[in-house]
C-alpha cells in the first residue's frame, strides 16, 4: 500500500461546459454525471461518492449530477462564501505558533459534503452504542471487582501497565454506573468498504462544535442541495448533551446547575468549550471559579456569593483536575474536587479514570470485552490488531513489519509509532528491537487504505482521505450524533486529518433512503419541458 503519491493522473478536472444551463439540458434533459467526474482519479481507494471516474455510487447519482451542474466556477464561489462566513461567524481553533505565541486560526472547511446512506448509518449507530455500553461496563468492573481479569479474558499485566488507570477511583460508584458519558470514536473505511473503529476517545474528545458549525455553514452556502436531500438534522446535540449531564445531578429535585470546566482561553479547544456552554445555557468556568468547601460540595464564585454546582462537564485532563488528588502543582483544577465527586455531591463527566479504556492495547481487546459483558458479537469491527504481548502475534509482527503500522499503547498524536511501508530498513530493525524489549506496550495493524471524498482543490474536485468522529452520549439513555465530524486530509495523498497539521473538515450528511433520487437539474429540465408543453 502506498501512503503518499497514490494518484497516477494529475490532470485538472475542469469540464468545458457545465453550467446550470450548459450542455446537460441540451442533451435532452437526460443528465449524466459526466464532465466534472470524468477525470476524477479515485482508483485504489474507496471513494465515498464515486465508484470510479464518471461513475457515482448507487444512491449518489443525483448528488454527483448536481455538483457537476453547479460547475467548478460556482463550486469555487461557494467555497469562498463558506470561508467568508466561517470568518464572520468567528469559528476558530487555536494553534501554538513557532514564536511561542497563540494564533486563532479560522477553521478549514470544504463545502462538498460527505454522504452516508441512512440504513448503513443506523447499523453504525447501533454498533457505537453497543461498543460504548460495553466499555462503560468494563471501566466500572475495573474499578470494582475486576471480574474480567479474574475470568482471564483481560490480562492483569495490561491493567498493571495502564497509565490511565487511577487508583484514586477504585470503589467509586458514579451516578448510573456510567464513566464515559461523552465518547468520540474515530471510524475509517477501508478499500473494500468495511467501516472500522480506529480508536475510542473516552477522556475529553473534542470536535463536536465544528460538526454543528459545519452544518450551519453548509445550509448557508449550499441551500438548494440541502433542501433537496434533506440530510437528517444534527442540531439536537447541545440539548441532548445537557439532558445527559442533567441526568447525573446529585440533586434530582432541583434544576441542576451544570457548568463547563475549561483550562482557559489558551487551550486549543477553547472555542468549543465556549460554544457548548453557550448552546447549553451553562456557565463556562475555569478552575479558579470553583471551590470545594468543608461540606464536600462544589461551589462556584459568583457576584451574588457562592452557588452550588451539580454537574461539571470537564474539559481538563484527569491529572490536572484536582491538585489534592493528582498533580499538586496544577493551577487549572479545583482542590478537593475528587473528594466532592467521591462523596456524590457533584458529578463529573467524563468520570475521572474513564481513560483506562482508551489505550491502544485495551482497544485490541474490545471485541472480547463486548462478548464478555453483553454476550454479543461486535457490530462494527476493530481494525485487525496484533497484540505483541502474544508470542505468535509478536513473531508475525517482527516478520511483517514492512506491511504494518506499529503503535505504542499510551501515546497519541502519532508519537512513537512506525508506519512500516514508509520506513527505512534501518528504522524497521530498530523498531523491532523496541517491540521485542517491551512487547506488552505495542500493537500492530495492517496499513489501511482509508476512503476518500471529493474535495475542492483550486477549481477542481480531487479525492482526499477522510475519517469520521461520531459522538456517543450515555446516561439514563444513549444517543449518537447524526453522522459526526468528518475530518479530511487536505494535502494530496496525506492521511493526517488533524487540523493543526493541514487537516480540514466537511459536513456529514446522513441521507434518508430515496432522498434526492431525482437530480435537481433533471427536475428543472422537466419543469421547463412541462412549461413549454403548457405554453
Amino acid at each position: 500500500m502506498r501512503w503518499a503519491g497514490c494518484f497516477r493522473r494529475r490532470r485538472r478536472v475542469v469540464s468545458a461546459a457545465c453550467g446550470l444551463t450548459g450542455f446537460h439540458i441540451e442533451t435532452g434533459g437526460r443528465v449524466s454525471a459526466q464532465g466534472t467526474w470524468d477525470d476524477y482519479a479515485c482508483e485504489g481507494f474507496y471513494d465515498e461518492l464515486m465508484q470510479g471516474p464518471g461513475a457515482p455510487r448507487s444512491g449518489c447519482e443525483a448528488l454527483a449530477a448536481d455538483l457537476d451542474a453547479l460547475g467548478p466556477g460556482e463550486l469555487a464561489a461557494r467555497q469562498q462564501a463558506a470561508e467568508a462566513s466561517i470568518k464572520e461567524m468567528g469559528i476558530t481553533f487555536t494553534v501554538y505558533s513557532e514564536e511561542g505565541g497563540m494564533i486563532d486560526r479560522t477553521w478549514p472547511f470544504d463545502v462538498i459534503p460527505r454522504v452516508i446512506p441512512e440504513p448503513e448509518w443506523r447499523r453504525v449507530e447501533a454498533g457505537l452504542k453497543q461498543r460504548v455500553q460495553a466499555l462503560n461496563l468494563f471501566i466500572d468492573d475495573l474499578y470494582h471487582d475486576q471480574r474480567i481479569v479474574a475470568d482471564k479474558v483481560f490480562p492483569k499485566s495490561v491493567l498493571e501497565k495502564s497509565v490511565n488507570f487511577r487508583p484514586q477511583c477504585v470503589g467509586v460508584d458514579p451516578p448510573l454506573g456510567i464513566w464515559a458519558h461523552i465518547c468520540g470514536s474515530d471510524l475509517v473505511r477501508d478499500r473494500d468498504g468495511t467501516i472500522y473503529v480506529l480508536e475510542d476517545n473516552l477522556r475529553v474528545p473534542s470536535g463536536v462544535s465544528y460538526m454543528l458549525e459545519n452544518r450551519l455553514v453548509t445550509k448557508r452556502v449550499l441551500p438548494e442541495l440541502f433542501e433537496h436531500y434533506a440530510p437528517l438534522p444534527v442540531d439536537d446535540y447541545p440539548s441532548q448533551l445537557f439532558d445527559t449531564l442533567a441526568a447525573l445531578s446529585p440533586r434530582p429535585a432541583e434544576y441542576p446547575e451544570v457548568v463547563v470546566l475549561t483550562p482557559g482561553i489558551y487551550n486549543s479547544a477553547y472555542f468549543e468549550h465556549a460554544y457548548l456552554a453557550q448552546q447549553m445555557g451553562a456557565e463556562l468556568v475555569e478552575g479558579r471559579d470553583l471551590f470545594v468547601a468543608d461540606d464536600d460540595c462544589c461551589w462556584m464564585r459568583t457576584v451574588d456569593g457562592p452557588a452550588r454546582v451539580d454537574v461539571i462537564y470537564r474539559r481538563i485532563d484527569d491529572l490536572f483536575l484536582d491538585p489534592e488528588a493528582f498533580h499538586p502543582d496544577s493551577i487549572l483544577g479545583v482542590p478537593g474536587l475528587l473528594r466532592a465527586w467521591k462523596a456524590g455531591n457533584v458529578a463529573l463527566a467524563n468520570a475521572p479514570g474513564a481513560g483506562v479504556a482508551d489505550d491502544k492495547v485495551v482497544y485490541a481487546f474490545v471485541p472480547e470485552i463486548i462478548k464478555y459483558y453483553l454476550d454479543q458479537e461486535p457490530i462494527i469491527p476493530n481494525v485487525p490488531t496484533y497484540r505483541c504481548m502474544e508470542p505468535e502475534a509478536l513473531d508475525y509482527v517482527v516478520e511483517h513489519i514492512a506491511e504494518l503500522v506499529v503503535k505504542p499503547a499510551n501515546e497519541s498524536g502519532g508519537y512513537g509509532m512506525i508506519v512500516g511501508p514508509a520506513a527505512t530498513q534501518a528504522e524497521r530493525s530498530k523498531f523491532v528491537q523496541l517491540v521485542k524489549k517491551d512487547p506488552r506496550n505495542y500493537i500492530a495493524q495492517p496499513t489501511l487504505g482509508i476512503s476518500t471524498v471529493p474535495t475542492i482543490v483550486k477549481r477542481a474536485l480531487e479525492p482526499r482521505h477522510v475519517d469520521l468522529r461520531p459522538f456517543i452520549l450515555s446516561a439514563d439513555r444513549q444517543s449518537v450524533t447524526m453522522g459526526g465530524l468528518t475530518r479530511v486530509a487536505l494535502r494530496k495523498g496525506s492521511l493526517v486529518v488533524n487540523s493543526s497539521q493541514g487537516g480540514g473538515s466537511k459536513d456529514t450528511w446522513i441521507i434518508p433512503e430515496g432522498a434526492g433520487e431525482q437530480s435537481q437539474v433533471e427536475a428543472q429540465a422537466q419543469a421547463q419541458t412541462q412549461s413549454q408543453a403548457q405554453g
Partner: protein
Amino acid sequence: MLSRVAENLYWLARYVERAEDTARIVTVNANLLLDLPKGVAPGWRPLVDITGANALFEEHYKDYGERQVVRFLLGDERHAGSIVTALAAARENCRTIRDIVPREFWEQINGLHLFAAGELQKGLAKTGRHAYLRELVLRCQTLAGLLDGTMLHDQGFEFLRLGRYLERADMTTRIADVQSANLLPAADEGRPYDNIQWVSVLKSMTAYQMYRRSEQIRVQRGPVLRFIFKHPSFPRSVRWCIEHARIGLERLPRNEASLREVGRTARLLDGTDLPALSQAELHQFVDDVQLGIAALHGEIAATWFPPPLAMDAAA
C-alpha cells in the same frame, strides 16, 4: 454572574479608559508645547510622571525627549499603561466574555486594537499624531456608547462602569498632581504662561469648554482645582466619578464595605477647601484621594472578584 466575568468586565473598562485618557494627555501636551517658548515649557517628562512609571522609563530610555516619551506612552509593549498594551489587555479581557458583551462591541475592540498597533508609526510621527490620537479617542467613546446603548444594563454593566469611573478618577488626580507641581509657586500667581498651562490641565480632561460654561471666571488655580475635583456634574471630575460609582454599587449585592469606602472618599472631597491648600497640602490631599480610590478597588476585588491565583500572589 461569575466573579471572574465581573472582574474581566471591570478591567476591560479600566484598560479602555486608560488608553483614552493617555491619548488625551499626549494630544494636549503636544499642543501646549507649541504655545510655550523653550525654557518655560516643562517638556515631556510630566507625562511619564503622570503614569508613575518613571523607573521603567529610565531603564529603557536615555532622556525624556519627545520621541522617547511618546513611544513609551503610545506603543511600548514593556509598559503596561501604553495605549497599545492597554488595548491588547482590554481585548484579552474581552475574549473570554464574548458572550456577555454585544457582538459589535467585540468587533470594535478587536478593530481598535488592530488600529492602535497597526497605525502606531503614524502616531509616533509629529504629522500623523493628531489624527491618530483623535481616532483613538473617538473609537474609545464609540465603545462606551455601544455598551450604553446595546448591552443589558445588568450586574455586568455595573462592573464595566465601576472600572471606567475608578480609572478616570484616578487619572484626573494624577493629572492634577503632576501638572500643578510644575506650576505652583503659591505666593506668586499669575506668572506668564501659568494661565495657558492651567488651560491645558483642563484640556487634558476635555474640561476647558465645560469649565467656561460652568464657572464663568478666568482660568486660575483655585477654581480649576475645584472644578476637576469637585464639580457635581462634570463627568470627568473626581466627585462625579465617585458619586456614579456609588450609584452603581447600590445596585450590587453585598455592597456594604464598598459603600463605606466610597463614602469616606466623598467626605474627603466635600470637606476640603481646595483653593486654600498650599502645594504641599494639595499633594497630600491627592495622595489621600488616590488611597481612597485604591481602597475602593480593594473592596470591590475582595467582595466580588475571585481570589488571586497563587502565581499572581507570588509575583
